[in-house]
């Protein structure tokens, strides 16, 4: 364990009253009004808010296979810079993370890098081909202890396969995270289907293609009594379906991305492929609906869907460009801007949506590297200090990610991560990464 003790002085715990926090031996050793920090290095946190280290349930780290876009090391640095202490690495790598071998490799790379815990997501089907189940149990039993399974990027559209996957992972308390996209309704789709897509001549990605799959999967999950998680929900209709499911007490959880909380399809009229993402940016009405859904708990969590791409995959014609945008190092600012500064969510709500709940869904809140734990004495010292009064103009060139495809480049956003601690060790201090 890290030998250094750190005393955080005067931070507002979860945005509440000010208090001191002593981080020692990887845990929160003391917490309260007047903590004895003898021998500890003191950090003045007056005006800052302390939250539990953020947990991302949906990150594309690209390694193995596309190390030109991102590596486990660079992606977790970007995560730390954004206040995250754990990320779930999606399975659509090359080779696909569909065996114990690949998930263990990713997990180990995360441990070696040490910037944030890496929790690999396992593929649901072999090679993401949607034909037969991958060895889900082997991945669950591996050193990586996989609990989240997803073919993200591709929808598990075969109803029988989806049913079996939902049933099978019950044996080890896993969850299927569905990328809800009816494939036939979205062949060649380029942007939200709307009047704008008709005007721009871009193939539409209709809301119903997302909603139809969510509705089906909610019914399937109810039928077999399994946990279901919906990735990057993006439409008003999807929010309504999930709301209904929760009213019926079904074990369904859902996530929304920062970009779907802030950006709308209008940006596509520039044909700038930085705004090309899947599911696509939607209408202002959809944005309002996902914000409401996140505020009232219909949507459980914010997940970044951080999707790095090299320059050449974005500096091209819209149709040829890759889907996806960076999200890790801007997520908290976007959430502050869209949810906190608008009064929809307080900081303890942010802690829930970005730390407690994602850790609970991913079942990484209870093992020896537990994440998303309360800020309480004896809990792991995963802490992020943020300055809500700060603001910055996003410069994608300065991102710790290897890629530059941030849709917020040049945009002014509030807030800033001042420090991130992973089990008591600073990964970010004074707003900068502690080591390269």
């Amino acid at each position: 364990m890290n030998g250094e003790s750190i005393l955080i002085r005067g931070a507002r715990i979860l945005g509440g009253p000010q208090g001191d926090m002593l981080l020692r031996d990887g845990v929160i050793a003391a917490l309260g009004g007047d903590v004895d920090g003898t021998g500890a290095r003191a950090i003045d946190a007056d005006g800052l808010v302390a939250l539990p280290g953020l947990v991302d349930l949906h990150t594309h780290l690209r390694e193995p296979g596309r190390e030109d876009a991102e590596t486990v090391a660079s992606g977790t640095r970007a995560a730390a810079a954004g206040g995250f202490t754990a990320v779930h690495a999606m399975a659509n790598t090359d080779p696909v993370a569909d065996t114990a071998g690949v998930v263990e490799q990713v997990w180990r790379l995360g441990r070696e890098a040490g910037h944030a815990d890496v929790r690999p997501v396992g593929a649901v089907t072999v090679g993401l081909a949607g034909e037969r189940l991958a060895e889900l149990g082997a991945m669950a039993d591996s050193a990586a202890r996989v609990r989240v399974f997803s073919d993200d990027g591709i929808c598990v559209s075969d109803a029988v396969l989806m049913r079996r996957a939902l049933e099978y992972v019950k044996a080890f308390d896993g969850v299927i995270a569905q990328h809800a996209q009816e494939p036939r309704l979205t062949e060649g789709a380029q942007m939200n289907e709307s009047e704008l897509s008709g005007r721009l001549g871009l193939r539409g990605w209709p809301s119903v293609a997302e909603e139809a799959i969510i509705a089906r999967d909610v019914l399937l999950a109810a039928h077999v009594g399994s946990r279901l998680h919906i990735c990057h929900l993006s439409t008003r209709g999807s929010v309504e379906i999930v709301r209904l499911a929760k009213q019926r007490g079904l074990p369904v959880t859902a996530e929304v991305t920062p970009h779907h909380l802030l950006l709308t399809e209008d940006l596509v009229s520039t044909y700038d492929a930085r705004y090309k993402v899947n599911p696509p940016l939607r209408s202002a009405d959809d944005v309002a609906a996902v914000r409401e859904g996140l505020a009232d708990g219909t949507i459980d969590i914010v997940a970044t869907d951080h999707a790095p791409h090299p320059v050449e995959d974005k500096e091209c014609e819209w149709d040829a460009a890759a889907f996806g945008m960076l999200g890790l190092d801007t997520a908290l600012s976007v959430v502050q801007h869209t949810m906190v500064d608008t009064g929809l969510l307080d900081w303890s709500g942010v802690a829930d949506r970005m730390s407690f709940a994602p850790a609970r869904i991913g079942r990484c809140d209870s093992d020896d590297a537990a994440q998303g734990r309360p800020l309480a004495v004896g809990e792991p010292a995963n802490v992020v200090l943020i300055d809500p009064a700060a603001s910055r103009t996003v410069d994608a060139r300065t991102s710790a990610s290897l890629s530059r495809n941030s849709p917020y480049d040049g945009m002014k956003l509030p807030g800033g991560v001042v420090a991130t601690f992973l089990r008591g060790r600073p990964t970010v201090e004074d707003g900068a990464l502690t080591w390269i």
Partner: protein
Amino acid sequence: MIRHLLSAADLSHEEATLILDTADEMARLTEGRAVKKLPTLRGRTVVNLFFEDSTRTRTSFELAAKRLSADVINFSAKGSSVSKGESLKDTALTLAAMGADGVVVRHSASGAAYRLATSGWISANVLNAGDGTHEHPTQALLDAFTLRRHLGDLRDRDVVIVGDVLHGRVARSNVLLLATLGARVTLVAPPTLLPLGVENWPCEVTYDLDAALPGADAVMMLRVQRERMNAAFFPSAREYSRRYGLDARRFSSLPEDAIVLHPGPMNRGMEISADVADNERSVIVEQVTNGVYVRMAVLYLMLAGSGTGSAGGEDAA
């Protein structure tokens, strides 16, 4: 006068009229003359950048540029970056290095011309010669020019456009331009070939061709690709033709002086019957001739001047 021509929506009534008036002069300056070549764009380089084959459009632009004495380079980029060939960006940088003044770009991806014009990769004027299922503004201009020659001022004239609006860049550009020029446009198509939100376009929409024809001053038939029926946009070519094709019976329900347009290439027997296509009130061949005049006008207005300010009102003393 015009920096780029990317969408018919970019043109105000005044600008569109200037282009059409200029095209009128281009026709008068070259029609029936021994010397068809004007020295106007001597020393200027126009690149025809075609990522998608279209001999007729390329030839039309080539002829237009050559009649204005521009140097013309035909650059057919066989592989677009869609097919993992040279990227649009690298091609643009190459053209910039060659000193292109104007780039006429045809591409299978919607927005490619827009991207080229706004990316900062190249400073040349960009002219959209058809981008994916988005727009084809010079086709709309040549259609408007042809309509104007036959109908005069287009204000309150009824133009019926029939066919695949969803995948059709011609329909999109025509609706925008004709609305700007004050014409009343009616789109006719099966519901599957109309884009979402078409009811908010500046036009009428109907599924009933027979109802639309008796009031039409002109009817424009769009090419419908047979392959669309494989994707279930309509059941069969025969049914399409029966419900949306212009045959002799429907032709006879048009007012006596109404004209028929088609951007070509035609599917005879599909959207238009052979006898209608060859009727003297069909102006399809004339559209091809007019295409050259309109493109001369656009190239002139785009490339002849210093590229700053506007042309309007310079002559008032």
